[in-house]
């Protein structure tokens, strides 16, 4: 730290100054490091701003068009600018919601196991495998669901298959987040409950979990935001449809990423129009979830 720099007085050159400044070489190195570190941060901002600006500029026209939020692309010709994406919004939401319905309870229970019950080898293995699962590429998760459910069990391609793949991607996020929140709950609360003669499982369900609730909900919302943009599973596990399909258990179903990917092969300018419109729509949905997550996390019962 260069607090002493200014204190060496030039009036007293004969004696060594009491507060000698760091040597020039050290100062240069320090300033260079400060510059580079700041630069790194600025560099990181460039793509973020650039991507978001691109999406907004190219997509704003589409999402402001009158039919965008309320119509599907049913019967819309490739070169036409008509129609909307509500069928794809529905698909994105229902696929993520179904995945959450399965992944959230399992994830919370697994986190409770890791924090409250797990001891020894099984707990260590589980914790390790959660990390591995977090690193499984979405295309591998999709292939696994394809191999296990479609090839071997003979299930049909459907939105539900996508949801199953998304479960694998959501689980580690939910587990790690819940785990972290449960560990923040002070042991004193657990002790207080035990001392009242409340069994451990009820203590966890009624005291510990509610205390950690807002953090857990935040984690779920972030996990949802993450899986909504996944494209690989929808490519492998469900066919694209231009019109609405409300049944996640059979038939083709659109989703925003799948719609974007399908329109990539549309050579007409209207294809680009829809792609960027869908991109902006997807980003808006994800932003709403992120905002919601940060609002919920303010209502934490744990004062840090």
């Amino acid at each position: 730290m260069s607090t002493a720099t200014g204190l060496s007085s030039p009036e007293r050159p004969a004696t060594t100054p009491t507060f000698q400044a760091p040597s020039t070489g050290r100062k240069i190195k320090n300033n260079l490091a400060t510059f580079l570190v700041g630069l790194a941060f600025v560099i990181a901002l460039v793509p973020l701003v650039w991507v978001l600006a691109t999406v907004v500029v190219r997509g704003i026209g589409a999402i402001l068009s009158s039919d965008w939020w309320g119509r599907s692309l049913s019967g819309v010709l490739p070169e036409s600018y008509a129609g909307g994406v509500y069928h794809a919004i529905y698909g994105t939401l229902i696929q993520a919601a179904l995945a959450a319905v399965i992944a959230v309870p399992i994830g919370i229970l697994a986190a409770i196991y890791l924090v409250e019950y797990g001891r020894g080898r099984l707990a260590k293995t589980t914790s390790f495998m959660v990390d591995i699962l977090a690193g499984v590429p979405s295309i591998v998760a999709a292939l696994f669901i394809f191999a296990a459910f479609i090839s071997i069990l003979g299930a049909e391609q459907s939105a539900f298959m996508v949801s199953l793949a998304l479960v694998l991607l959501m689980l580690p996020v939910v587990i790690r987040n819940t785990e972290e929140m449960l560990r923040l709950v002070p042991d004193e609360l657990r002790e207080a409950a035990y001392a009242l003669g409340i069994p451990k499982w009820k203590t966890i369900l009624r005291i510990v979990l509610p205390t950690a609730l807002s953090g857990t909900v935040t984690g779920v919302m972030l996990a949802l935001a993450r899986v909504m943009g996944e494209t690989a599973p929808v490519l492998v596990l469900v066919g694209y449809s231009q019109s609405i399909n409300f049944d996640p258990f059979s038939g083709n179903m659109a989703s925003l990423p799948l719609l974007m990917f399908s329109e990539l092969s549309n050579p007409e300018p209207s294809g680009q129009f829809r792609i960027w419109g869908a991109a902006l729509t997807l980003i808006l949905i994800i932003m709403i979830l992120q905002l919601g997550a940060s609002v919920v996390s303010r209502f934490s019962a744990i004062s840090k």
Partner: protein
Amino acid sequence: MAKRLDLKAVDIFYGDFHAVSDVNLSVSPRSVTSFIGPSGCGKSTVLRTLNRMHEEIPGARVDGEVLLDGEDIYARSADAVAVRRTIGMVFQRPNPFPTMSIRDNVVAGLKLQGVRDKKKLDEVAEASLRGANLWKEVKDRLDKPGGGLSGGQQQRLCIARAIAVQPDVLLMDEPCSALDPISTLAIEDLIGDLKKEYTIVIVTHNMQQAARVSDQTAFFNLEATGKPGKLVEIDDTEKIFSNPHEQATEDYISGRFG
């Protein structure tokens, strides 16, 4: 209601570590017994074995017998959860449940044991809060979160919560150590009232407090670092503070060490 506690040849271990050795003492019903002694002598450890709370630390185990009216709380047929329902505990730092209102905090034990009767719960809440000298201060804000109370009020809330399940014995682990002098006084008064109905064991660092509130006092000490803590003597509080049997007790009381 209030029951008698007897400890017979109690040894406490954490894994290989022998924390406390060979404790024998008796606590009679409707009395206050205080545990005093230097830090690390095992007095809190002993307290936590009285309702099997120490079991929450992995590797902890107890030899010997802890008898509640002659019944071993460590008997093979005794469940830790059931034991804790009979022997309540108040902790060093007030720990109301942050997600619950004041009323729900008080009746948390009953509710989680399955009592659903709203009228009964309200009655118990009022009775317990009165018992903890807190009713007048909170009766208008029973639905507010317990975390909004002052430290001393929170601690009395925790006492109300502990007596709401009508335990036979009430354990207090330095209940005033996080409180200011005025709140401390309020708790001490409360202990005086509570002993009419409960058997109370209190761990305290404050010798004046032990002298003020307790009928008998137990002095714990370490022979040397690394050795297990042990019970030096237990006697009437008056006797301990005026004319103790052991030299070590007198040294500690008079402030010559610890």
